[in-house]
């Protein structure tokens, strides 16, 4: 019947729309990953936009507002890194799945907490509910410097097993702080 053919087309439309969303995000992620602009290039861009803007106001954001927004984000980020002791050196993400209200992204994160460096890989599943977004970590893999300490390696394996990313960061923070104190104390005695 005609109705069933309609349904077939409608189903295919939905699948195609979802696939397009996923591919678009993959492409944008890819573009973001493969580009890098230095601080000088960023400054140059701000200046060039300000010059352009003197001519007309296209209804776009005023460049000094854009500059202010960028600076505010940078100060927030550097405050957090200083306050928590956690410095992220590099971060990359790849969208693996995007259907309906589900998004799965693969993340790679590296950085250090005080003097201890770490490298993480995990999958983040985010689901949009009516009022909130839920996030679940799976496939967590952790590489932590000073992993020769057997207690630390036990902690790392148990954290990996349960996907306990939050506990990892919270414990890392205090462990790294005390690691620093011990190091300084021992140096003092040398």
């Amino acid at each position: 019947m005609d109705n069933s053919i309609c349904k077939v087309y409608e189903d295919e439309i939905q699948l195609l729309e979802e696939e397009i969303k996923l591919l678009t995000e993959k492409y944008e992620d890819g573009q973001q990953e493969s580009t890098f602009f230095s601080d000088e290039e960023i400054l140059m861009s701000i200046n060039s936009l300000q010059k352009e803007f003197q001519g007309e106001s296209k209804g776009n954001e005023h460049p000094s507002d854009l500059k202010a927004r960028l600076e505010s984000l940078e100060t927030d980020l550097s405050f957090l890194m200083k306050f928590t002791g956690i410095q992220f050196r590099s971060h990359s993400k790849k969208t693996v799945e995007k259907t309906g209200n589900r998004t799965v992204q693969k993340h790679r994160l590296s950085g250090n907490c005080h003097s201890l460096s770490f490298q993480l890989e995990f999958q983040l599943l985010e689901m949009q509910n009516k009022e909130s977004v839920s996030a679940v970590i799976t496939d967590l893999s952790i590489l932590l410097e000073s992993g020769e300490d057997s207690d630390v390696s036990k902690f790392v394996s148990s954290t990996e097993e349960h996907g306990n990313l939050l506990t990892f960061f919270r414990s890392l923070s205090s462990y790294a702080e005390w690691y620093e104190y011990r190091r300084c104390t021992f140096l003092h005695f040398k």
Partner: protein
Amino acid sequence: GVFAHLALLEARAYEAAVKQEETEQQEEKLARLKARVQELRLQRDKLRAQVEQQEKGQLGKEGALNPAQPSAQTVLEWKMKSLKAMLQIFYLTGISGKLTKQGVCFCISTAYEGTYLDFYHLDLLTKPEVQIYRHSIPIFIPLQQIAKKYLQTDIRRFLSVLSDHLNAYVGRRYQADQLQEHFSGQIEGTLQRNSLCNLLVFNYNVSSENKTFLFKVRLLYGDPCCSLPTEAVISST
């Protein structure tokens, strides 16, 4: 007679017209859907090719992706996206936030194993001394006590202790919810709990060899910073 006959013919003609219109509408709809499918397929194929090109490009050769000089707008959008993504990641560490005119607004994230649960906000003023301006901490968490002890002297410690309380509470609540959800068949009646979720009382049944035994359980979580019970009392009813 003739009149009735005419009326009948008119009715039939009307029905035929309606049916004709329906068929035409249906055909139009099908044509529209078919065209849409073609359009989307083209778009999808184009994107697929772009993504493939991108992936190949990354395997070595330079210049393939950004042959033209990027516009200032593009550069700044890249930077904005990069900063936002980094800030987003911070919530996974447990403490995130942003600076405000009068101080800082912290966001404490909680999780149980790999599942991130609630976020709590704490808006702090830093002058003349550190004080709590606004917050979304539930009333049964001893915020004032913790603040009195640590807020002025060691703000990191303050956040750490507060975070312990919040994570433990959220962990207990999540476990109780999971228990209700996954063992609803075995729980008799309702699972009773207090707001802090450190006291759980429920009845559950265990079946063995066609006999069902009913037990009453009382779980007490004595440590507010721990999400495991310190005392369990099980009695048969």
